[in-house]
C-alpha cells in the first residue's frame, strides 16, 4: 500500500481495525493489515508510536514499512510492534513501488525487492 503523502498513525488510522481514516490519503477506507506500507515519513502526533504498537496488539498491523525517511515515531513504533522497517534506500520507493505490487522487505540486510504483478515474475531490487 503506497501513500505519496505522509502518514499520521494516531489520528489517521483506526487502531482496532487497521483502516485508514484520514480523508487526505489516497488509501482512505482501506486496511493496512498485512500490507507493506510505503510512505514518505510520519507527520503529526508523537503518540503515533503507541498507535503502531496498538495495531500489532490488535493483529491488524502492516507486515512491514518502507519509508523514504523514517522518523523516531515510526522507528520506535515498528521496534515495539516487531515490524521490519527500511528507510533511506538508494532509489525512492515512492517512484518504484505501486499499490498492489508484491514486495519483499528484509530489514536485516536493508533490502527491498519489488515483484510487480503487472510485469509477471520480473523483480527489481532497491
Amino acid at each position, binding site marked *: 500500500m503506497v501513500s505519496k503523502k*505522509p502518514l*499520521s498513525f*494516531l*489520528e*489517521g488510522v483506526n*487502531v482496532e481495525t487497521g483502516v485508514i*481514516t*484520514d480523508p487526505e490519503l489516497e488509501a482512505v477506507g482501506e486496511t493496512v493489515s498485512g500490507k507493506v506500507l510505503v510512505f514518505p*515519513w*510520519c*507527520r*503529526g*502526533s*508523537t*503518540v*503515533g*508510536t*503507541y*498507535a503502531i*504498537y*496498538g495495531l500489532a*496488539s*490488535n493483529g491488524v498491523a502492516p507486515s512491514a514499512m518502507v519509508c523514504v*525517511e*523514517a*522518523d*523516531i*515515531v515510526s*522507528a*520506535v*513504533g515498528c*521496534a*515495539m510492534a516487531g515490524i521490519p522497517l527500511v*528507510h533511506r534506500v538508494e532509489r525512492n520507493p515512492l517512484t518504484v513501488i505501486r499499490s498492489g505490487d508484491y514486495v519483499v522487505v528484509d530489514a536485516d540486510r536493508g533490502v527491498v525487492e519489488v515483484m510487480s504483478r503487472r510485469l509477471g515474475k520480473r523483480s527489481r531490487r532497491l
Partner: protein
Amino acid sequence: MRSSKWLEEALGGAYGSGVRKAAEMILALAEAFEAEGLVPVRSAHVSGVSYRTIGDYGLRFLEELSKEGVRVRVEATMNPAGMDLARWREMGVPEEFAQKQTRIVECLRRMGVKPALTCTPYLAGNRPERGSHVAWAESSAVVYANSVLGAWTNRECGPSALASAITGFTPKFGMHLEEERRPTHLVEVEGRVEGTLMYSALGYYVGREVGRGVPSIPKASGASQDELKALGAGLATSGGVAMFSTKPVEDVPRIRVSPSDLREVVEELSTGSGGLVCLGCPHLSLQELETVYELASKHGVRGEVWLFTSRSVYEEAVRLGVVQGLERCGVRVFRDTCMVVSPLEDMGVREVVTDSCKAAHYITLMTGGRVSVVLKSREECVRGDESR
C-alpha cells in the same frame, strides 16, 4: 558510541532489564539514523499519557516497564492525561476510563516522571537553557523548545523520550546537529497576523507546505510568547516541523501566505457551527487566563466555556485570584488534560468551539468527524455567539 561506563553497565543488565531495554532502544535509534554518537540530555518530556491515545496496550507497556524498578536519571515531565485527575467526574469522564488513566499516571510517577501533566512543560518548571540538549516528545513542545527556548531536541515519541529519561542520553542526529537547524524556507506573510487563531492557522498552513523543513517566518518576530506557542502547535500538526526561525534568510525556496490562505485554513478545519467552548490547546499560560478573565468579566459569558491549563499555571492563577474570578463568570478551569486527549464522545460532547487549529484537526480525525469543531478567535470564543 558506547563511551559511557554507566551505559555499558546498563546494557549488561546491571540495573535491571527495564534499564537495559531503554539503553538498547537508544542505541538502536542511533544506529537506524546513523548518528554520530550519543549526547547527554538535561531533561525529557514524555508524551503518550492519556488513556484515550495509548489504550490498554500502552498501559500494559508502561506497567511492565515500571515493574522492573526503572527510574529516570534526568528531570522528566509528562504530557496531559485524558482527564482532570481531581475533577474527572465533573467532566463526565467514565469511571472505567478514570481507573485506567490513574494507573498510567501512577506508572510514570513511580519511574520518577513529574506529573506536570501538560503540553507546556516550559511553563511548569521544565525550561531548558538555550543551547542545551533535551529529549522531548509532544510535537508542539518540541517546536517551542527548539525555536523559542533555543534548546536542541528531536521530535521524540513517548517511549524514546522515556528511554532518554532513563538512560540520560539521546542519539546525536537530526536537531542535535547544527546544520539541520538552519532555515530551509522563507515564509513571506502578507497583511497583519495577530492572535492565537491566526497564528495557529499560519502554523498549520506553513507546516503543510514545508513538511519536515525549518521555515523562517520573519513576520513572527513581533509575536508574543503565547502567539508563538500557537504558531508552533500549528506547524507541528500539519507537517513534521520541529523548528522555525524568524531570522531573514536567502537562497532558499519562498512561500507566500496571504490573508485568504489563512481564512481558507480556518474554513477547511471548521466542520460545525457552535458548541462547548474549549480553550487551551496548547495549555493556557497565566497571561492567557488573565486575558480571558478580562474578556469574561467585561462582556459576560454565554454558554459553557472550559479552559485547560497545567497545574503549575493553575496554582499560580489561584494565588492571584484569577481562577476564582473566572469561575464567578461561569467559566470552568480544568487542569491536567485538554479537549484533544479527553474522551469527548464518552463525555457527551458533540460540538466544540475553539481557537486552535491543532485541536480542530485532531478532534475531527480522532472522532471520525462525529464531534464537530468550529474555529473562532479567542475573543469570539469567550464572548459567545450572539444568536445562541
